[in-house]
């Protein structure tokens, strides 16, 4: 994600606060559609489609991320056709309301996920932290977010080494035996605690007194950022209030 966010694309240079606000407004607008309004929801695809093209991000990469979030959405959505057996008129056809609400739920899930993926794929973590600070999210929380983010890779490598060493000593065994649950994860925990001490000492030696600069001086608000914000808020409002898809369809 860091590599994606660090690319020299036009969208990547938009102010992080602007992108964060647009993303939140977009998700709020998407989830506020009624549960049968799949035609109105379809119009909301305009934002992810446009940003995918502008940022030159891979659509398939974002689809892969759906595997975490879709199971619960599908579990809830799949029950709708079973319990909602009424029919709704859609374009002159009688359609099962349960099927419509299931489709709308899945569309909402996919669109919201794509929007948050596009935010993080075009915004480095440090600049996003800067946006959080501008929103007056407490310093402790933002610093802790950034440190956790930075140390995930370090500790993941350590966990991988431990599990690999265990697997080599216990061939053919799936997972970690319950007799060593405590000592295996506990060793990793104690090492993490020791590492935290080292991290703190090295941060202090580099002048840490409880705060990072968060690059605020390098992030100035340009007129393009304002135009980006107004444009997308206008588009989101338009597609939320006016049934653009139906209107265009009737004209065509």
């Amino acid at each position, binding site marked *: 994600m860091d590599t994606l966010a660090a690319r020299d694309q036009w969208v990547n240079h938009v102010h992080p606060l602007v992108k964060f606000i647009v993303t*939140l407004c977009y998700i709020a607008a998407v989830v506020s559609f009624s549960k049968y309004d799949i035609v109105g929801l379809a119009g909301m695809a305009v934002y992810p489609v446009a940003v995918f093209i502008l940022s030159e991000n891979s659509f398939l990469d974002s689809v892969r991320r759906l595997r975490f979030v879709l199971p*619960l959405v599908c579990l809830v*959505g799949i029950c709708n056709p079973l319990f909602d057996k009424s029919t709704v008129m859609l374009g002159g056809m009688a359609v099962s309301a349960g099927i419509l609400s299931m489709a709308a739920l899945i569309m909402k899930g996919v669109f*919201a996920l794509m929007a948050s993926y596009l935010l993080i794929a075009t915004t480095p973590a440090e600049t996003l932290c800067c946006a959080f600070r501008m929103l007056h999210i*407490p310093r402790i929380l933002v610093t*802790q977010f950034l440190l956790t983010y930075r140390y995930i890779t370090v500790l993941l490598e350590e966990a991988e080494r431990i599990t690999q060493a265990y697997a080599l000593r216990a061939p053919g065994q799936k997972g*970690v035996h319950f007799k060593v649950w405590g000592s*295996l994860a*506990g060793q990793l925990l104690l090492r993490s605690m020791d590492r935290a001490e080292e*991290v703190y000492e090295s941060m202090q030696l580099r002048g840490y007194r409880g705060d990072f600069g968060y690059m605020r001086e390098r992030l100035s608000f340009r007129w393009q950022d304002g135009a980006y914000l107004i444009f997308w808020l206008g588009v989101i409002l338009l597609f939320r209030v006016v049934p653009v898809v139906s209107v265009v369809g009737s004209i065509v």
Partner: protein
Amino acid sequence: MHMADALVSPAVAGTLYVCSAAAAAYSVKQVRMDADTKKVPVMGVMGAFVFAAQMINFTIPGTGSSGHLCGGLLLSALLGPYAGFLTMIGVLMIQCLLFADGGLLALGCNIWNMAFYGCFVGTLLIWRPMMRKGMSRAKITAASVTGCVLTLQLGAFSVVLETLASGVTELPFGAFAAVLQPIHLAIGLVEGLITAAVLVFVYEARPELLDSPDRETREGRFSFRTTMVVLGAAAVVIAGLLSLTASSLPDGLEWSMERVAGSAELDGAGSVYQAAGSIQEATSLLPDYGWKGSESAAGTAFSGIVGCAAVVALCVGACWLFRFFRKKKQYE
């Protein structure tokens, strides 16, 4: 248990954001009071540890499947409830933004369902009371299993309530709860045992790392003012949000009246009834819990908040009068 954005309505998401933000603001205040700059790096690394520990597959004997440890309770047992809660928020933010596990709009719900229950309920109501008279392996195991089971049950129940309040599913309350609660009972038991194993190891290797009730004696005690503010905020949230789902069906008295008299409201005959009725009509700002001439949800929510404020004002006024006359009587 991570909720996606599609499962929540903006009203529910906003409400839970406010609740989680209030808990976070209180935690930030508590952690700042520690004035320990070392705590933030430790929180950061421990947050990363929770991710790393998710990578380890703990085999559940006899099933062939695997489980993970419970982050909220583990972090709180090591860092205390407030720092643990803030660390969990960081973990959930990263899961949401980097791993698409949970939605950005539903982040407030996820913080409430997982971090709030895991850190505050699990630690303040279970871990600390059980450790008050000293720690032992058995106590740590019992507290971990009880804490994990209870907090996961509360979290799963909140998922059910939040999804139903958002109106995105046709699943009846009973069926939805019957699916989620037993699954999370099993998950809670397994996570509790794994968390217990890790905490027992830490207790034997480095017991000073574990949180104990005497570490921060001031914590857990609310002043009268804080209690009143929390209760007031809860009342406003409940009145504002839940009044949207207020039943249009008659209440018990109205139902009985309808059965007996054929109408939910009796028409008073006579000039006294008419005069009283016209006074009530003229003075009631929010008839039938809504704006005059308005059937909107916003009107209902507003009337809920105003009603709540009126009841609180009446209650405070009545108590003040009671205290005033009681003191006067004692003085006499």
